[in-house]
């Protein structure tokens, strides 16, 4: 009954997908029969009012709900044809391939250098290669020029925008295939937001990006495709321009025009 507008894409154009996903916290159903495909090297925005389940869906993709004892998932979450939950992958493997950037920048209470180095270290990347990777990741995230002389400073001293870009660099350094972003700019000022948005657009040539956002303008600026969710269901999805200018569903129209949310 929902996701009715889904036109199944050609399979090799699907990087990541949800198939009939239901999710409960205790007895409360938060996701209802979600079916979405995410194409490779595209930015897809998940929009919808608070509590619509968009963050919950995002976190299901890198198994962040594993730690919530009362979360229960049904259906399939699939990365390149492989179910993320069927025991083929461990949670650690999934998270290695699907990186995540959080709502509030959460750098480790370590130096800037160590923030990126830590992920490399635990993931067994040879010591000799690490320095280059770190430099590269910082360049990819466009903070190398700002930070190259203070790599040994504590990351917690950076500005909010710099911290968030460092967190993106930390994710990028591990060369994941997909990067999930959970309202990455909601705590930032407009200028930092702009920088992150530019970064997102540049990153999509190497990564598949799924971004949850509250900000309609942001979705229109960065996303190729947009998915509108409401009360745990996918109401409408499509090309960003199409969805914002010609919404097929009345709810979508009301939401993107700012009548509720």
């Amino acid at each position: 009954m929902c996701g009715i507008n889904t036109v199944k894409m050609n399979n090799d154009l699907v990087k990541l997908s949800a198939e009939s996903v239901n999710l409960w916290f205790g007895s409360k159903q938060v996701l209802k029969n979600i079916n979405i495909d995410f194409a490779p090297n595209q930015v897809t925005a998940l929009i919808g009012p608070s509590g619509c389940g968009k963050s919950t869906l995002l976190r299901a993709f890198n198994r962040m709900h594993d730690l919530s004892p009362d979360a229960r998932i049904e259906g399939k979450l699939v990365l390149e044809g492989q179910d993320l939950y069927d025991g083929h992958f461990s949670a650690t493997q999934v998270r290695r391939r699907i990186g995540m950037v959080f709502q509030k920048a959460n750098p480790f209470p370590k130096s800037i250098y160590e923030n990126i180095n830590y992920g490399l270290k635990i993931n067994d990347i040879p010591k000799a290669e690490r320095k280059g990777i770190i430099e590269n990741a910082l360049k990819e995230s466009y903070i190398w020029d700002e930070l190259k002389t203070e790599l040994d400073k504590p990351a917690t001293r950076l500005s909010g925008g710099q911290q968030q870009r460092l967190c993106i660099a930390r994710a990028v350094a591990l060369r994941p295939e997909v990067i999930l972003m959970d309202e990455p700019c909601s705590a930032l000022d407009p200028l930092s937001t702009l920088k992150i948005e530019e970064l997102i657009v540049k990153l999509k040539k190497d990564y598949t990006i799924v971004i949850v956002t509250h900000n309609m303008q942001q979705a229109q600026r960065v996303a190729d495709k947009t998915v509108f969710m409401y009360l745990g269901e996918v109401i409408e999805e499509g090309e960003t321009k199409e969805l914002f200018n010609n919404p097929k569903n009345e709810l979508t129209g009301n939401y993107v025009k700012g009548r509720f949310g």
Partner: protein
Amino acid sequence: MKLAAREKIDDAVKLLFRTTGLLVIAILGGIFFMLIWNSVAFFLKIKPLDFITGTQWNPSGSNAEYGILPLLVSTCLVTLGAMTIAIPLGIGTAAFLSEYAGKRLKSILKPVIEMLAAVPSVAIGFLGIVILGPGIAELTGQSNGLNALNGAILLAVMALPTIITVTEDALHGVPQSYREASYGVGANKWQTLIRVTIPAAAPGILAAVMLGVGRAIGETMTVLMATGNASAFPKGFFHSVRTITATIAIEMGEVPYQTTHYYALFAIAAVLFLITLAVNLIGEYFVNKFRKYQAA
């Protein structure tokens, strides 16, 4: 390290953490078992009724008697005295801290209470001997002031920090809107405290009192040093008494292993354990009640 190895370590460590959690249950179970086991050995030799109703504790006499009543009454007497002093003082201080004291005064008073809590019980007992004892002796004309009153005052000092801290938390947890509502109908600060804030915090304050009682009943060194330890049936606050804890402390060091007397000490310890358990459970009940009430 390879991922498989890392995940194996992860599982192993989780098991280790879980084991320590289970061991905690085993420790409480072990204490329980030890008390029960030795008490049963005692009750095989002495009738439970004689133990509960006996008014003489005289285990080393030729006609040994194992009545717990004098010890139990001593413990209750000292605890009652301590609470009579500590409850009003503790609630008053907590109310002062929570409702009247400014930020600066609080930052001085909090460390005072924390320091008081840190003084070892043996040091408090020592002061009972060198200061309070002679003081009481002078007032009453007794040869020494080592009696129930002395122990009660010292235990009050020891229970105060607990009572103050928990009561202040409880008062602090009362929503500001309650006080505002009270001021709104023209009540002043004192009326608000007595008629609104304290009743609203009552379950939390009761929990504080129960924790204080638990602390006082289980305290050993202070009462051992300050109450004189006469084993006769207690006659009042100005007489020497001997609590359950003091009896164990005095006699366990000298009693031969696995004699009736040895088992008897475990039996009175079991009674002490059950009393503190009950007191703590009641305290916990009130804490939960207060939390629920706060959440509502």
